[in-house]
């Protein structure tokens, strides 16, 4: 249980770490949109180079990136294979009733690259932003929606609390499992139904403690006069600085170049 990492933030002091989280979030979005605009493999490779360049800036080892890519390999392989066989076009070779087409192969490569870039891009965001940074970025970006009655402050607070309690509840689950195992609970063997039933001794204490914690937290927040986020100030107010502007210009510049390169070369 302890090995589950969520919001796999890597502490660091790179150019990207120092960016305003809002900028980081927006640039990630721009990058994702870019990936869906691109139509050719060379462009896609440039986009991959761009994200790898960003990884180099943060000095995240490639090993780590590869590790985070691992879970999506089956998806990539599966969709690539489907594409290879089911896209109509010039047949390269065929066997039985299946045939691989040139266009199919092209799509397969394109799609794999796109998925890899997508994951690399969004991982970079979580590698360089703490969950708290992300929620405050979201909060500020969605602030205009308060005008149409969306409780942005409250939603952001809920998200922050939820993120904050994930490790706590995991630890709690660990402890309860240890306790019930000590009382002979059999969690690892048995039929499917037996295993589900075996979870009761874990889930009930977990829920009880989650509610208890919620009560305590609510009380503690009230004691500190929390009454909704309106007008609440921050200890570390987010500020757009010159470096943020430069980053935006540079990044958008690269993206435009990549888009334009499609027009020129191919």
């Amino acid at each position, binding site marked *: 249980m302890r090995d589950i990492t969520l919001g796999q933030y890597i502490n660091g002091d790179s150019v990207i770490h120092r960016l305003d989280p809002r900028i980081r979030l927006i640039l990630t979005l721009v990058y994702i949109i870019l990936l869906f605009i691109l139509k050719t493999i060379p462009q896609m490779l440039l986009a991959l180079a761009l994200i790898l360049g960003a990884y180099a800036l943060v000095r995240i080892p490639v090993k780590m990136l590869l590790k985070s890519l691992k879970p999506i390999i089956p998806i990539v392989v599966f969709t690539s294979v489907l594409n290879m066989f089911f896209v109509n076009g010039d047949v390269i070779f065929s066997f039985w009733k299946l045939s691989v087409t040139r266009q199919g192969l092209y799509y397969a490569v394109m799609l794999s690259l796109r998925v890899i870039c997508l994951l690399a891009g969004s991982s970079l965001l979580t590698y360089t932003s703490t969950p708290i940074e992300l929620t405050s970025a979201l909060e500020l970006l969605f602030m205009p929606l308060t005008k149409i009655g969306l409780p942005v402050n409250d939603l952001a607070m809920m998200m922050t609390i939820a993120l904050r309690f994930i490790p706590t509840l995991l630890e709690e689950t660990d402890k309860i499992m240890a306790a019930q195992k000590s009382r002979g609970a059999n969690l690892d063997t048995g039929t499917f139904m037996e295993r589900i039933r075996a979870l009761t*001794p874990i889930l009930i204490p977990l829920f009880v403690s989650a509610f208890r914690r919620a009560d305590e937290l609510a009380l503690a927040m009230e004691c500190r006069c929390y009454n909704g986020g309106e007008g609440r100030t921050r200890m570390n107010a987010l500020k757009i600085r010159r470096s943020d502007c430069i980053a935006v210009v540079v990044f958008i510049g690269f993206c435009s170049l990549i888009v334009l390169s499609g027009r020129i070369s191919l």
Partner: protein
Amino acid sequence: MSTIKLENAGFVYQKGMPDEKVAVSGVSLTFEEGDFIGIIGHTGSGKSTLIQMLNGLLRPTSGHVYIDGDDIWDDRSKLREKRFKVGLVLQYPEYQLFEETVRKDIAFGPKNLGLSEEEINSRVAEAADFLKIPEKLLDRSPFDLSGGEKRRAAIAGVLAMRPEVLVLDEPTAGLDPRGRREILDVISNYHKAEKKTIILVSHSMDDVARYASKVLVMNAGGVFYYDTVDEVFKHALELRETGLNIPTVTDILLTLKERGMDVDTDIYTPARAAQTVTQYFKEVEAR
């Protein structure tokens, strides 16, 4: 009756990761049957990790743990059976209560042992009796009990399994002095009545001095001292220097000695301390 032997046992959290943390290393010792052992040490000295290795909740990342001569990790299919010999009461055990009634909750362990209905009932009654849980509470929901009652119900749940070795991780944490005394007396009575091995993790040197026959002092994941209470508290000065608590009376006597009163300091019970101090004054008067 069971003997637990650790041979060069160590445990590392997140082994192989950049944030790996050595919790226990190179511990070799034997918990003899029938002993009442107190384990003390700072927060983070590896006490909790150590005791979780005793019943196979954690697998040592190095070394071995033997119960009655068998390495508990030799045969995984027998792990559960071995685990039943060592009853472990973790910190804040009341958070493990889950059944509809206290009776059912205490019966959870015995049921997992695969005992007959009558045997389960008699064990529940016996454990409840030992922990002074009145009959009328047994059919209430465990969530309706008071803090101290919950704690006792949770401990009863482990006692009802009649483990050969009973391990308790700070069973008195967060209780008032009366609650502490009640729980410790129950444990002590169980030890005397059943002659089972007791391993008690505690922050309080006073409690250990009062109840235990042997003391294991842990420091930075290793064994600092493991000896009889008398022997260990002879090193009271060293213990105090490493920042560990020592029994209050020993502490007082050491301070008196530092201030120039020539009293015996290898003492950890209030009665004997009083005796020594009175004797000292008598000697002074005589002179």
